């Protein structure tokens, strides 16, 4: 018997509290100011998607791609747009990396930043999820977004979000036990 969902929730529109921020001066926010405002949460999201070692690179390429897009100026909800670009960019990176041979050496130009090392078991749990599942888990548990809002943010269907969330929880229940 194929499963048909009972009627789903309607999609919500862009989050009302996240339009282009207008500082007191009333002038639109510059890209630099927007990045300043969102940088911490974006790097955190990037870390969830690809781990701490690659988060900075992912953030850099995603932000450049976003602000370089011809559609950037017309985007109403730039925060959601950036989350979407990060997710898509992580999927590309993820795919290319999984095709690389394990013996490939990579060198980094790194700041002298000593970040806390995440418990390897926890990182293994996160790595057991697909990139999109990680994004859905993050937006559910960190941002407390409802599935319909996640679907809007990631520009996907509600059913896809619900499926990803369900599958991710099932996988994490196995790996975190």
């Amino acid at each position, binding site marked *: 018997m194929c499963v048909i969902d009972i009627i789903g929730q309607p999609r919500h529109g862009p989050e009302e509290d996240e339009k282009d921020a207008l500082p007191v001066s009333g002038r639109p926010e510059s890209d630099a100011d927007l990045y300043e405002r969102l940088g911490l949460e974006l790097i*955190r999201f990037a870390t969830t998607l690809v781990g701490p070692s690659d988060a900075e690179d992912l953030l850099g390429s995603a932000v450049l791609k976003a602000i370089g897009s011809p559609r950037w100026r017309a985007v109403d909800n730039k925060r959601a747009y950036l989350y*979407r670009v990060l997710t898509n960019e992580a999927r590309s990176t993820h795919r290319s990396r999984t095709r690389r041979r394990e013996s490939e050496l990579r060198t980094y130009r790194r700041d002298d930043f000593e970040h806390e090392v995440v418990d390897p078991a926890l990182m293994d749990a996160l790595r057991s999820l697909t990139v999109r599942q990680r994004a859905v888990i993050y937006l559910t548990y960190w941002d407390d977004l409802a599935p319909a809002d996640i679907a809007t943010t990631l520009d996907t269907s509600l059913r896809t979000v619900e499926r990803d969330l369900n599958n991710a929880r099932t996988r994490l229940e196995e790996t975190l036990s």
Partner: protein
Amino acid sequence: MNSLDTKIRKLLDDVDRASPPPPPFERLRSGETGEPGKANRRRIIAGAAAAAVVAIGVGGLASLDRNEPATSVPADQATVDGPAAETPDAGTTVAENDPATTAFDPATQFDDAPADGEALFTTPLAADQVPVVILEGATTTYAQSLRYPGPFGGGTAGATVLVPDGAPFDMPRIVMDVVDRNAANGNGALDLSASGDPIDVAGTTGYLSTEATDPETGEEGPIHLLFFDVDPDRYVRVNAVGVAVEEMVSIVDNYDPDTGAVPVPDGFMELAMPDHDINHDVEFHYDLGGDVRVDLHGSSRGAEHLLGWLVNSVTSTQVIDGIDVIVRPVQEEAGGVNVFWTQGDWGFRANVFGTEDPAVIADFLRGFRLVDDATFTDTYAGGDVVTDTTRAAEVRAMLADVELPQALEILEGDLIDRRGANSRYQEIAEVSGTIACALLDLHFDSGPAGPWEAAAALAASTEWDMLLEIEDQGGWASAVWQTAAAIGGDGLTPPTTTIGGGQAPTLETLAPGLGCDTR
């Protein structure tokens, strides 16, 4: 909060503590993040340059990719040796895809793609997973993949659908929706009283027509069609099968036309009929030799797609390998059957011609295989086929001799962001159709400033290699050229062409001929 939720939150807390600080914005712009050496190979398109590529072409009529060799390198992997370019060279750039749309990597089409050769019949597909399907033991002779915006006005999208609890395609079934009266629907002057016998419903007079049996199968219904006005601008349409009139009326009496809500009676469940912003339809034809042929139609509109076919049909569900299917006769040919089923978000209809043997039909269903582009191309015998792997390069080649006005905004994604397998004829139709429709829009929007630029560009379609290639294969090229002739334009003066009766052509009269309203 349960223990799993607690563990997940702790995991994210740990990730937060492990997150590095975000690099300074200036360092992002200089490309100095990440691996050394990569900065010099990263193409940076800054704001001004990005704006320059919004309108295809630089300085008057310009060509797409006239000097750029076709390449299938995805945008996210594009590299430029040497110093990063701040400004694109004239004529070498088609506007980048929007990075917020899924960067499409043909090598790994799905996030959790089925393994090559996995059975279609038992693999749930998400709405954005466009299948490429072969049939074991058969030659594929046709492929088409269409991408079009939602909602789909010709179906049951957005309707309120009540079906038996646990049996989505059995009866009784009631479908209710609200129809707007307007010129586009062609129903502004529709007289409902001519559609059936008067009946009291929802506090007003409705009009009911009933068939006792299914006209295609002779199976006992009844099949009802009911209309009633909500207000001068809207009416409710009800399709009900296998339910007594009294029960149907009692349900419809409680239907809210403004919200689509209705109390769900015992024994029923409401079947979701969601709209999608983007829909995909696929079609494949298979030849097994002799008199047996199979055509497979699929739609990401899922159950809504099936109901579009079955809304007025008496249906009974059969189960094959645990999958609910509905089998109906094919009216176009004797001895053929239509088999309907849903698979995840997708709905499928297999037309089987030349046999009605249930065992044979079941084997066909099990024989559909989801394959990668290489496998599909190897088994395709219908001429040239365009797949996700080859699309970008082939479309860019199609555009090599297409000159467009600077004011025309088409992003590369509009022409390439299509998934699945298409015969080359269909692919050319999609590409040229998208461009022609955009030119029509520009022509009728331009006003006195320059309507002839768009007309001249469309007139030049008679020289487009892609249309000349398919000229003798079907009627599409002629349709484009006739549209071009209708708006005239030699690039020097505004067009003065009139159509029959001395009337000037309008967007409303020309657009449907190219399918513009569905692009």
